[in-house]
């Protein structure tokens, strides 16, 4: 295996993938295009969680909090105050960022499974607020009829293809940023923290600050996904924040392969696919999904991306 041929291969695959994504609206029926949008949004969401789990070793079970909070902020501002996307989107991001600052201060005191559970608890509190503060959030029924974003440049987002490109553009930029982050010195430091915090401290890294920073960054990307999701569904409900969603995105990451970014994106696509397409053919899709988890766990313990990586390694060494 030589580095250059490998990176060329990656580059080619990347270009091909991008090409497919660009022409998708030409080949897909509107419904499937909508599903593709959903997959992209969840891919973004899952990648954001991977920054925490795969790269920093902090498994969060409350990531939906940021997804949902920004969704509520954007949704409410768009619906009640009529803010356009240029204002509502940053406001949504600020919302999830602020929440992450606050929760990070609490959650970063813990590690491992405790971190898992404190993030869960904090997100469930947010869920409780969204569910219980009925005058603002509409309670369980949520906020319907959020308008699609209006860019103010005469492109209608009611059109499926336009909206698709809008999401694709944002997801592509976000992915690019995340890839840059994990391959930067900062990203390497995160891996070091995942492996040994005490050694990182001894080397002079401010471990807490790195963790705090990535916690907020991950929340911002999750928030971005949440914002896109409100615009996509045109409603927001407490369900966005519920632990079931946090668990789902966690599964996406593990299924795809933590620590690879692209893996969780695949994981997200696969789960969305199952939930939305397979379920039309069989009532037993939940069991089927269970078996998929089982098989992946046993035969690809490092997720789908891990499987591909191991396969490549094997080929290279033989």
């Amino acid at each position: 295996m030589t580095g250059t041929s490998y990176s060329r291969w990656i580059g080619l695959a990347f270009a091909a993938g991008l090409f497919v994504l660009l022409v998708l609206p030409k080949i897909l029926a509107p419904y499937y295009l909508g599903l593709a949008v959903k997959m992209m949004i969840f891919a973004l969401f899952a990648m954001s969680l991977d920054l925490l789990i795969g790269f920093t070793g902090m498994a969060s079970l409350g990531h939906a909090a940021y997804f949902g909070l920004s969704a509520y902020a954007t949704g409410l501002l768009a619906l009640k105050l009529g803010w356009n996307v240029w204002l509502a989107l940053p406001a949504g991001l600020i919302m999830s960022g602020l929440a992450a600052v606050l929760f990070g201060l609490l959650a970063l005191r813990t590690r491992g499974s405790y971190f898992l559970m404190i993030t869960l608890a904090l997100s469930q509190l947010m869920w409780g607020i969204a569910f219980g503060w009925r005058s603002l959030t509409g309670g369980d029924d949520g906020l319907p009829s959020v308008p699609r974003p209006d860019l103010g440049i005469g492109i209608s987002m009611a059109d499926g293809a336009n909206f698709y490109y809008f999401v694709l553009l944002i997801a592509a930029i976000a992915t690019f940023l995340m890839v840059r982050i994990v391959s930067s010195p900062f990203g390497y430091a995160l891996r070091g923290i995942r492996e040994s915090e005490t050694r990182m401290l001894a080397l002079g890294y401010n471990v807490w600050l790195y963790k705090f920073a990535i916690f907020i960054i991950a929340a911002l990307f999750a928030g971005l996904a949440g914002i896109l999701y409100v615009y996509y569904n045109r409603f927001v409900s407490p369900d966005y924040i519920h632990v079931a969603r946090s668990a789902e995105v966690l599964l996406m990451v593990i299924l795809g392969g933590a620590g690879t970014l692209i893996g969780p994106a695949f994981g997200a696509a696969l789960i969305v696919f199952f939930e939305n397409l397979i379920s039309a053919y069989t009532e037993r899709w939940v069991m089927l999904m269970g078996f998929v988890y089982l098989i992946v766990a046993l035969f690809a313990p490092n997720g789908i991306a891990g499987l591909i990586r191991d396969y490549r390694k094997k080929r290279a060494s033989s």
Partner: protein
Amino acid sequence: PQPAFSQDAIKIGVMFPLTGPLAGQGRPERDAIKLAFDEENNVIAGRKVELLYEDSAGRPDTGLTKIKALVERDKVHLLLSELVSSIGAAVAPYVHEQKMPWISTVALASLTRGQKSSYIFRFVPSSYQYTMAAAEAAKKMGWKKVYLIGWNAPPGHEALEGLKKVFGAENIVEAMFPNVGTSDYAPYVTKMDPTKADGVFAAMWGADSSRIVQQYVEYGLSKKMPLFGIASFTSEEVLGAMPPQAEGIYSAYTYCGSLDTPENKKFVQAYQAKYNALPGSYQYMGYMAAKMVIQALKDINGKAEDKQAFINALAKVQVNGPMGLASFDANRGMIGDFYTLKVEKGADGKLFNRCGDRQAQVKDPYEAFP
């Protein structure tokens, strides 16, 4: 007359929660819909009918995506779907925009208020409607001061609004709102003082209703203060999980399983023959909603493509079903008879709902709750 589109089938999208905690309501309701169409041999006005099933999994975003699948991918002519209110709220704007006729069994009051659309029909009493009916029935029994224990969710809170209207706010001794899925009701149950009220209203459903009854009985309260369930509180599918001491619990709803009419007997027998279980209120709603659709389709001679004609027909449909006459009001909410139900032990030792007083043709109280 020759049907115009005899070649291709009428496609009806049927989405319910088929997995997850709400499957207990979703699956039977879907089964009952199927039963109604089977009774027509899946042919209406000479045209084949095809039911396309989807699973909303009880989640609003999934539900919306599935509805889109039915509308955009499967090109259904109408939707006969859903019972979960949060999904209803999420789906309503979409179907309105798509001008897609949607007969829902979502008790969400806003479907016929804020989210009103000429395409949206609600074949189920709204939360205000069934609460008022229950409250009136209890008042007639002489209740003056009451407790309410209801889900900390829209229907629970709306139940309180309804009770206040009927009994007056000062006569609600206390309203408690446990979470959906509360495991232990002991803290609530022990707070209820039989000397302070004539009875307790309960607004919760599914596993929660059998659980609160279980614990209400366990603490000996059922002997001291009657329990009045709102809407389908004692529906047949949860009755099986209630203890023998649940005898004497009241409720008031549009379905009473033991009603002794030929229509109901036929329904019960048909359902039982097909699914080997007693139908409850969810089955009734599904079955009747399907009957309404079938009648409307017949009225327009199967031309499901003509959405306008269909909704016009549906708005006027009156069907005499298992529980008597049912129809839609001007806002496309359901009108039907309500019965006061009382849980009793049958000859076979099993609990069943005895049908008591009837409130004829109860309408959604739009005037009281605009």
